[in-house]
């Protein structure tokens, strides 16, 4: 499935909906969306990952990028990540800086 990013800004809550494969070749689009979210002064970033297939190391690094870009005060929630994706996030220890939420 082709990678796609949908960005929605709802007051101070920014939702990014991902679908397809997030890897080195597509991470740039995701980074751009994160940059827009940061620019919108979001207090919460919701990443909808239900339609996300494979997550490569570059994809995982994008979550670190999101954390840095958004700053400490912003809650980042990843919703509906598949079990392999959620497991990788937990094992790397990233679940301490973002919230993993079931769909």
């Amino acid at each position: 499935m082709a990678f796609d990013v949908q960005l929605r800004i709802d007051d101070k809550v920014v939702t990014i909906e991902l679908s397809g494969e997030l890897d080195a070749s597509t991470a740039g689009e995701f980074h751009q969306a994160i940059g827009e979210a940061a620019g919108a002064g979001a207090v919460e970033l919701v990443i909808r990952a239900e339609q996300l297939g494979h997550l490569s190391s570059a994809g995982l690094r994008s979550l670190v990028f999101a954390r840095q870009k958004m700053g400490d005060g912003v809650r980042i929630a990843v919703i509906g990540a598949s079990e392999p994706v959620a497991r990788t996030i937990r094992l790397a220890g990233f679940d301490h800086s973002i919230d993993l939420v079931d769909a």
Partner: protein
Amino acid sequence: MSTPDIRERIDAFPTHRIGPYRVRAGRPFPYGATPVPGGVNFSVYSDGATTMSLALFERGAAQPSAELEFPPEFRIGSVYAMTVFGLDPENLEYGFRADGPFDPERGDRFDAGKVLSDPYARLISGREIWGREPDRDDVYPYRAQVLNDDFDWAGDRPLRIPAEDLVIYETHVRGFTRHPSSRVTAPGTYAGLREKIPYLRELGINCVELLPVFEFDELDNPRTDPVSGERLYNYWGYNTVSFFAPKAGYAATGPFGMQADEFKSLVKEVHKAGIEVVLDVVFNHTAEGNEQGPTISFRGLDNATYYMLTPRGEYYNFSGTGNTVNCNHPVVRDFVLSCLRHWVAEYHIDGFRFDLAAILDRAPDGTPLPNPPLLEQLAYDPVLRHTKLIAEAWDAAGLYQVGNFPDYGRWSEWNGKYRDTVRRFVKGEPGLVGELATRMAGSPDLYQGRTSSASVNFITAHDGFTLADLVSYNDKHNEANGENNNDGADDNHSWNCGEEGPSASRDVRELRLRQMKNLLTILLTSQGVPMLLAGDEVGRTQLGNNNTYCQDNELSWFDWGLLAANADLLRFTRALTAFRHAHPVLRTRDHPTGQDRVGSGYPDVSWHGVRAWAPDWADHCRVLAMMRCGRHAKGGSVADDHVYVAVNAHWEAHDMELPALPEGERWHLFADTGGILHPAGTEPELQHPGRYRLGAHSVVVLVGRASHQTTA
């Protein structure tokens, strides 16, 4: 005055073009690959190379996508440095190709046919999954990668627990949770160890010492099990491939290249639990071995700089493994120092234990130096200023420096003499009462003028019998290692308690349990820094194998089922660590003197025998009691109780006359290894205030404090 807009500033721009790549002369420091704005800076040192190229691979590709020769103007001194723009670090593997003379007698072993791994690589791919057979035809098996410095430490830093307050726990990242009984999400990984932090907390240790975690190749052992025919591994990992890179095969996220993050996450969480992390580091040799070994990195970059060579250009072998790192060469010193700084600054590591550290004070020709510059440099380095430095103060070529390793007021040592004395005394050898007293007092004979934390006391370590095997085997049983039982130490000072190996006899089993408790009790009440071997607290056995370096199986793995099976020993060990933490008198920084310097009426340490104040130092004696006066705790700065530890290694019971306490104080019973345990703070008062009957092969620990009337 207006502020210039820094976003518009250009830090560096390409000045050259090599093929499709835009490049410029790089910065010589730091060595290795460093992300810089717009690109990656590469820097490598080689004195003898005639040409140097940077080989760039797309991740996993069989052949390099490009090789960029460093233009002459990119070389400063003997450092080749180049910034390459427009690279995608996520998808990049890189190495170096160095051409130069192949003249072994002069020390040169350049091989332009090899792609060399960067000695400063922060990340290595190629061995991401433990034990998976690699492509043996790979032109570049250990591939350097670029690491992002984007980990969020959330305020963490090294803990700086005073050395004398440490209780060290030596363990193996994989072995700790690889056994299915661990029930962790990712067995055998950094993440798995992280899940077991609550266990470490409950055990009461405050420092984990990890067997090597620098990238190594677990498949570099050519041997097989002589019975099963199965492959044997390099399980322990004392054969470093890459010194700046965490072992990817220990990371559940290694296939994602996330091993650095996973390991940092482990360190951060361990710190949160109040536990330090010490790494076992191996700077005495490398995985390149001798003349027959693989050319991975150093050999092809500057063989004569990195290795000690004979006048004929052969490898000196003080490590017993084929080569010896030339640690006191200025370039190598710089390498070792940079490496340790990297682990402290980037990974928040609290200390290092140096494998075969005596090699670190040998000159390039192998002669031991009185003032080895490397050890001095590490001792005074600003970044390492509060880092624990622990030496295994001997090497494989007969240099034994326990007690005289050059310490610069900073180094501690694995105290091999402590291990041997306590083992021999507890097993019942005569003629050791005096030496046992010296060892329990922190070995002031060895470490005069140094603090008591100079001595890391231990009875067992990864190398040798486990505690359970120490009391179950007279001889090593290493047949499974494939060397006809010729490997491993022969002088184990072990005693099987009457039967070799597993025993159905209740008497034998009870004696073994008591002996394990005796050894642990002496260890946890001695002055110095105690170190436990993981699994000893639950009686882990290796079936008499005292050299399981190659055994990646149940023989080495921590069996979590033992927590229930040997719950009594675990409870006892936990109580001992809690007791040590509760009694600062056992953790005093300076050695006891046998004098009363605080006016308490008691010396800081006193020795007793069957009769109080009358230790029997005679050869035939097997009983010794030590009393520590709590008024002397931490030099008299904190209040503590009296602590009395009596050791009976005799096969008969003895009535111990107890030293009298100050008015209003009574002896309370903390533990008798014959089967009594009262957690620290709940000890009942002894019925008879002046006597204690100490069973055969037993140790008792009493606490002297104000009477509260409950009696045992």
